[in-house]
């Protein structure tokens, strides 16, 4: 008998979510352990973004529950879930276009959950030197890559234990994409858990501990990247590779 596993950092249990009439998530369960990197994959419209939004409390599940450290947070407001160490960088980046880079960072800054080295504005600017040069520029004056860096840096400033990245490399030039992936690897190496949604199969499988594939609101695959690569039929059918 193995010892009882510690409660996962974030867990969704049997989640059913609707948008109006359409049933988007159908009994989805996911677990993300501390320090783990999960790749969430699947084609457009399969429910990836909805799953994330349900986990962080932006969308309410009709059935099922969301737990942080084993505690039920299903009914808690989003800000309370965020304060338990869950950071979310949405698709489209969600930066405040009318605020300066400095202000975008300033409003996110807040003490981390006590332990460990905490992320400060100085450390974020060290990670993304390009942002340091543009502190007084408005959010909408940044290039796509800089916006993404700002969004990630801002999320880090909340000192999360889990960073969720939804399509962080979409619409970026190849070298910028590489930079983002390097950043993700670096963040991972600090022991922070990450949940990555991306269409670049090679990059995700290179970095993830586990892959979850969603098809029409259901989990059709969950396993290691190696297990996924061993199943080319699955790769082809659901990821088009």
């Amino acid at each position, binding site marked *: 008998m193995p010892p009882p596993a510690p409660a996962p950092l974030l867990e969704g249990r049997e989640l059913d979510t609707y948008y109006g009439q359409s049933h988007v998530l159908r009994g989805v369960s996911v677990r993300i352990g501390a320090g783990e990197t999960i790749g969430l994959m699947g084609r*457009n*419209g399969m429910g990836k*973004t*909805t799953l994330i939004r349900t986990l*962080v409390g*932006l969308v309410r599940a009709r059935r099922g529950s969301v737990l942080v450290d084993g505690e039920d947070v299903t009914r808690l*407001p*989003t*800000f309370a879930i*965020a*304060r338990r160490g869950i*950071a*979310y960088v*949405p*698709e489209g980046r*969600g*930066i*405040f*276009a*009318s*605020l300066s880079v400095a*202000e*975008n960072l*300033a*409003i*996110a800054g*807040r003490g981390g959950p006590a332990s460990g080295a905490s992320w400060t504005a100085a450390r974020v600017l060290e990670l993304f030197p390009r942002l340091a040069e543009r502190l007084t520029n408005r959010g909408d004056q940044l290039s796509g890559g800089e916006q993404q860096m700002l969004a990630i840096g*801002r*999320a880090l400033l*909340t000192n999360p234990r889990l960073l969720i990245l939804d399509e962080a490399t979409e619409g970026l030039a190849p070298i910028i994409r590489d930079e983002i992936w390097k950043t993700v690897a670096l963040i991972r190496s600090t022991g922070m858990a990450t949940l990555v949604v991306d269409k670049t199969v090679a990059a995700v499988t290179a970095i993830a501990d586990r892959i979850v594939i969603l098809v029409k609101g259901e989990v059709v695959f969950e396993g290691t990247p190696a297990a996924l690569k061993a199943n080319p039929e699955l790769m082809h059918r659901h990821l088009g590779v």
Partner: protein
Amino acid sequence: MGRGDLALPPTTDRMDFPGLLAQLLNGVQYGLLLFLIASGLTLIFGVMGIINLAHGSLFMIGAYVAFLVARQWGSVWLALPVAVAAGIALGLVLERGLFRHFYAREHLDQVLLTFALILLFEEARSLLVGNDFYSVPVPSLLDFSVPITAGFSYSAYRFAVIGICLALALAMFWWIERTRMGAVIRAAAEKPEMVDVLGIDARRVHMAVFAIGTALALVAGVLAAPLYSVYPNMGDGFLIISFVVVVIGGLGSVSGAFWSALVIGLVDTLGKGYAPKLAGLAVYVLIRAAHMIPRGTSGLIGLGLAATLLAVLPLLVSPYYVELGTYALISAMLALSLQLLVGCTGLVSLGHAAFYGLAAYTVYLVTPASRGLSILVTLPLAVVVAGLAALVVGALSLRTRGFFFLMVTLAFGQMLFFLFHDTKLGGGTDGAFLARPLLSIFDWQLPLSRRQRPYAVYYVSLVLLAAMYLGLVLILRSLFGRVLEGIRVNEHRMQALGFDTYRYKLAAFTIAGMLAGVAGHMWAMHRGFVNPELIGWHRSAEALLMILLGGLTTLHGPILGALAYTALGEVAQLITERQLLVEGLVVLFVVIALPKGLSGIALPRILRRIAPADPAKATVAGAGPNG
């Protein structure tokens, strides 16, 4: 209906230099006061999405605080700290106790809630102070005039008001632009969800915004009391103008509100500060209410029913109401003509009444003093003149967009206003009577008695309104109409598709001007009187209100809106003071006890079924997750 009149200082007829300077200073002072009110409104709307109709009542409370404090202790100065403290306390109580539970609710509920507050505040004022006008003395320290040039001096108190308002505006800017909380407020106005995602508890932001907004409204009331006196419903006029300020300045933008408040203050004051005749509080109640009713369902039955009802109305009511009905129909034509621009093409004009008034003046100018002309002469003439004016104004103004378009149309309207206001062309300020157009062909005249004539005008108006409605339905279904719809949805894309959108907008603007001309002509025929107010921008704003009231996306909306607006004006006069208390409590109870509000019960559903077809169909708003 002069309840909301702003008692601006009298102005001289001739604009010599000191006179102009005084007007400019008055305009700046009035605009800054408007800013204090509008900045709270715009922040509360921008951050929390609440349309707070009771904001004008908060201003009134401030004025009465000044009155009471001055009566008790003899100094208005003491009223300032009292107002700040009371405003913050009241704001916190209102936010925590009431508004917090309404952020996620429909606009109708919010409107009913704030309407109930207006009634209760007014009732409390009536119980505590009574319904008389009171003047509030200017603080003795500032009760003198500052000499500017030889022969011209200006009130020291007004200078002080300008100074205090500017200081408060600067403090606001500092708070919003320079502090972390200000950044959070701007962020929350832009992407509320992301603020939440970053772990920020938005409730504290809401409380702060509400408290500051309320305190500013009270302070504005204190400052205004010595200038304008205190009187029942004094918040109405300021509320409506403040809404115009907020809309023009851009919802949620404090700096936008600042500049637009200054512009409006100057325009209004230089426009001789004539009263905002926009009826007061009750109007907004039905703005959103009527929104809920007719959206997007079909049924010629409804249209037929409405037409039948309007057709038999004169047989059922007294002549007084026939006249009132005619006025409502004329208003409906004006609103409908404006809808071609606002709802169909997405062009918000503040100068639309110019074409309406110009048509009425055209009838006056072509009619000999002794005898009226045939409608077959006057109507085409009025329509052609209005259309030509619209062609010229449109050609010059449609090169601009958004805020600038509003301002340019406003400016053209006011130019025309002053043309008739300041010259003897049409009787000057007082207006002029005219021999009304006759229902005649060549020498044959419809034999009507004096008693029958109002009925005839009513039916002519009804037929013209019906024709206008049907004509617009056909236009919207044509290729031309589809282009207008495309422009409304995404003008930039229309240009990229290859449409010279300017020409289409100009055509729509001209047609709308001609249709407003029909309404203006019927006004002249109905009243036999013209005056500059027909042209003024308050009439344009009234037409916009009717559209808001009835719904932005339909053609029948403006008609319903105009009828409701006219009816409301009448009803408001019938309500006695004590009934307000009962009404306020009833509305408050309904809003709190029925979570779905009145919109949840069966009535709207029935109305929805019989509402006529929506010509501007397919209004599915939100795009997909990627859109």
